[in-house]
């Protein structure tokens, strides 16, 4: 009998062809639009940069100082002629450290102000909420005044963190206390939101390295001053160290009440607390409180040129302001932004801008450290500085011998 394999062969081929055509057809129908990263926010004369942060309310110190630090640099840059003749216009909306406002502001910045990039967001809970928007709008966000892990992992192409994370800060602090001071009873006081919980997780991770766990933790609600319960449970645990992940007002209250009750462990705060304001508000109760910083001290003008420039420009444009750590951070963020805009070239696009940022390798910014970005690395600095309040002032700690 004759064999007829070609029939099966041919028919199956025809079917396969149909299938392939269908697939191609399906591919063709991928949703259009959605991603012109183009040159929104760039005109011949200006580059619009948007920011939303707390300019009023209980965290206004952070936002205001950050923005003023940044503005000092940007104003100077604009005065010097801008970038390829374009002036940088920083549009800042006040979100009062309130996530809904931050989202609304961000939408407005993108939608109505048509900004080129987002810049200098302040605070974890606010910044976290705009992540989906940033991702969908494909807008680069440079320089966040928060060390939250959620802004670092999972990796986002559009988020550029310049400062070290809370995890890094807390890990450095825990290392110092466990190894140098041989203490092991840690408690965690935190703000009950994305920021505080991130710090709690960072503390737990850092302690885990030494086989430790927090002996207690207490929290308060953002925007309130209800720290009594937290203090009560932490005091009951006889903690030797209290890791504090909050803002300056509740932290101040917590430390003052603790001291009043004769509870004097080591109080340690992460950078976001706003060390300068904390020291000011604590007054004498602040003696010995440790704050980790992610930028050098603004006191170090003599040593670092950029810090000197910050102090100089701040004095020039905001004469009534004092240099602060947050302010310096905002300034440094502005420096990175400026350099990246310049490196992106005359025909700037968001993609070019991102590539320019990612191309920054060991970039010296005059603060004694090199900045490093890469295609898979959007974490600029890893440095953590220890400061301690002494006589109402934050002092950089270089050696721990003189500790109490």
């Amino acid at each position, binding site marked *: *009998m*004759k*064999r*007829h394999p070609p*029939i*099966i062969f041919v*028919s*199956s081929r025809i*079917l*396969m062809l*149909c*299938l392939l055509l*269908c*697939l191609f*057809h*399906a591919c063709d*129908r991928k*949703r*259009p*639009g959605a991603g012109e990263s183009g040159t929104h926010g760039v005109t011949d004369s200006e580059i619009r940069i948007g920011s939303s942060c707390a300019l009023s309310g209980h965290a206004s110190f952070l936002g205001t100082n950050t923005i003023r630090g940044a503005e000092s640099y940007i104003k100077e840059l604009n005065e010097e002629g801008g970038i390829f003749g374009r002036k940088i216009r920083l549009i800042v909306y006040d979100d009062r450290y*309130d*996530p*809904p*406002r931050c*989202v*609304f*502001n961000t*939408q407005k910045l*993108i*939608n109505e102000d048509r900004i080129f990039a987002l810049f200098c967001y302040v605070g974890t809970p606010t910044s976290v*909420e705009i992540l*989906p*928007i940033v991702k*969908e*709008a494909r807008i680069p966000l440079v320089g966040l005044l928060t060390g939250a892990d959620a802004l670092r992992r999972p990796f986002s192409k559009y988020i550029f963190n310049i400062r070290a994370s809370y995890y890094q800060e807390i890990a450095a602090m825990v290392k110092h206390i466990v190894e140098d001071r041989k203490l092991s009873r840690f408690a965690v006081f935190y703000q009950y939101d994305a920021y505080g919980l991130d710090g709690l997780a960072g503390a737990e991770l850092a302690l885990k390295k030494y086989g430790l766990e927090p002996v207690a933790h207490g929290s308060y609600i953002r925007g309130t001053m209800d720290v009594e319960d937290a203090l009560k449970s932490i005091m009951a645990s006889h903690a030797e160290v209290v890791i504090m992940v909050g803002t300056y007002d509740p932290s101040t209250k917590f430390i003052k009440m603790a001291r009043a009750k004769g509870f004097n462990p080591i109080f340690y705060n992460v950078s976001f607390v706003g060390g300068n304001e904390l020291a000011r508000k604590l007054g004498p109760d602040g003696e010995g409180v440790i704050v980790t910083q992610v930028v050098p001290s603004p006191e170090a003008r003599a040593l670092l040129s950029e810090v000197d420039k910050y102090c100089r420009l701040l004095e020039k444009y905001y004469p009534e302001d004092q240099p602060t750590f947050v302010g310096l951070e905002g300034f440094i963020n502005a420096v990175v932004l400026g350099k990246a805009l310049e490196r992106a070239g005359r025909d700037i696009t968001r993609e070019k801008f991102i590539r320019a940022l990612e191309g920054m390798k060991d970039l010296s910014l005059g603060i004694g450290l090199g900045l490093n970005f890469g295609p898979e690395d959007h974490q600029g600095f890893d440095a953590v500085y220890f400061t301690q309040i002494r006589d109402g002032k934050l002092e950089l700690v270089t050696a721990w011998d003189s500790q109490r």
Partner: protein
Amino acid sequence: MGLTKIGTSFENLSIRQKVLYSTIVMFLLLGTLSSVAYWLIFIPTFVDQIQQHGKQVAYSLVARSGPHILTRNQPELTFMLFQKKRIETDLSYIFITDPENRILAHTFINAVPDGISMAHPLGKNEDEGIQLIHVGENSIYDQAVAIKEGLKTIGIVHIGMDKQPVDALTTKIGLILLAVMIVIVILASLLSNLVATYISNPLSKLVQAMNDLCVGVIERLPETSDSPKCWEVLKCHRKDCPAYGKRDLACWFVDGTLCHGTAMSSAADKLGKCYQCKVYRKLTNNEIKQLSSSFNQFILTLQLKTREIKASEEKYQLLFNYDPNSSFLIDMPHGRVLDLNDPALAMYGYEKQDLIGAPFVRLFHEDDGISFLKKARETDEAYFFMPVVRAVTKEGRSFVVELHARSPKFQDSGMPFLIVSTVDITERLDQEAQLIQAGKMAILGEMATGIAHELNQPLSVIRMGADFFLKMISRRERASDEDVATVCRNISAQVERASTIIDHLRDFGRRARPELKEVDINQPIRDVFGLVGEQLKLREIVVDLDLGEGLPPIMADHNRLEQIFLNLVSNARDAMDTKVTGKEKRLTIKSCTKGGHVIASVTDTGKGMPKQVLEKIFEPFYTTKEIGKGTGLGLSITYNLVTKFNGSIKAASEPGEGTTFTLSFPIHSEEAIHGKSLVDR
């Protein structure tokens, strides 16, 4: 029309193709049905589900957005929408408008599409609605739900559900279905191919074996698997059973098996019972094995029968070849030699391959061949005979044969053919001719005295004339010239007569070449009396010739006819020799025509014959005459000669009254000439 054509085409496909195509068509139909079901049932349900979900989302937003609308808290509204959208990732947008369709909050990031807020306005009394709107290139189901404060509408929530992902999903599912279908069809094709192969391979082998069979290769199929052995299946130990231990023959085909209830019956009788037997049933589960087994059995039987046929054929071949006569098998109507035996080859001096397929008439003189063919083609008889046919050997030597042809009426034999047997009769003819000659001589001898009388008369007349002349001379008389002339004329006339008789005798006695001619039967009769008339007169026999006038001719030889009549007359004379006194001796010869024949009868008034003699008179060497008086061959030869002229001779006799011989010859007509050109030589 078309369907019939498809039906016919399908009919002509091989089993493999039939199974394959049927499977493919079946699965394609199945696939089409499921696709139709998919498009008609699944997709609308699916779309409906999505829209229902959209509605739920919208209502959940309605419940929560009221306070923010009343306080005009856009950031909270926006945040709420974004949070919702973060969960409901399938939604393409959410926005809330005031009753005048102005957007209060939305989730558009890059830009609010133009006119989107007016694309699907709700009617005054509508609480909800869904509508397909077009935003740029996208088609979107816009689900709108009114936000109420009491009866007053304070805002409207719009949920956008991109149609494209729905389409993409349904397309994807459709493609997956299609792919699954294709895989199933391919698998099914492969499977059906396997099944078809499983079925068709043994069939192909069977067909192959059948084809081999058609070209004469009788071979059994190789045993694919062990066919059931009855002694194993039934645990039978009867080694005297003919089926016991037979591996090549299934037990149900074996005659006289000893298994229960079927003892000693033939295979044909017991087969019905065998169908119920579990030995047979072991095989019935697989019809193809069954078929192979039956085929093998058929081949076995065929081999057996073939052997029998071969043996039989050899036997008959022997018979055929041992026949001393030449035998031929001739196909009709072409007249070609199909087969011939060894004596035929010897007789005609040919090699077998020279003659197989050659025209049979090649073996004969042209005329005789033509007449043979004519006869063979025209005759309806199962047998015909040609007494004398001139045959020619390969070297060209002529000889004479007699030819017997039979056309056997075999059952089912499509081709008519003839079995022809030829016998060389040259020698026999020679002997016959000698015999006839001897008979002639004998007759002449017998008639010698009569003939002497016949000659005596002219001699006497001549002598008288001579005496007359001598007397005249002695008398010294001179006869008148007229007398002399008269005497001389008489002498001359008598010499003429004598010489005629002598010539006649000589002619008669000559070994004449027989020639068939149209002959008037009266002529030889008269001639006979020219020879023996005088003699009869002497014996006082009255000759009564009653010859019909204007008789039609017959096909015969004058000389031979004369011999016939001379013989009969001679017998009549002898019969009337021993005459009872007082009875008239009368020889009557009549001739006439009757029913297409010319009849001649010779009647004497002699002593006649008794019946027992009458029966034997034509046998050779039978005679009633005294020893030395007759040869006993006369009537035998007469009979032979008459027969050769296609005539017949009958004798009727009454002892003491006389005897009548009646001869009958067919009247010669034109047709008869072709049928017979020569009867003697």
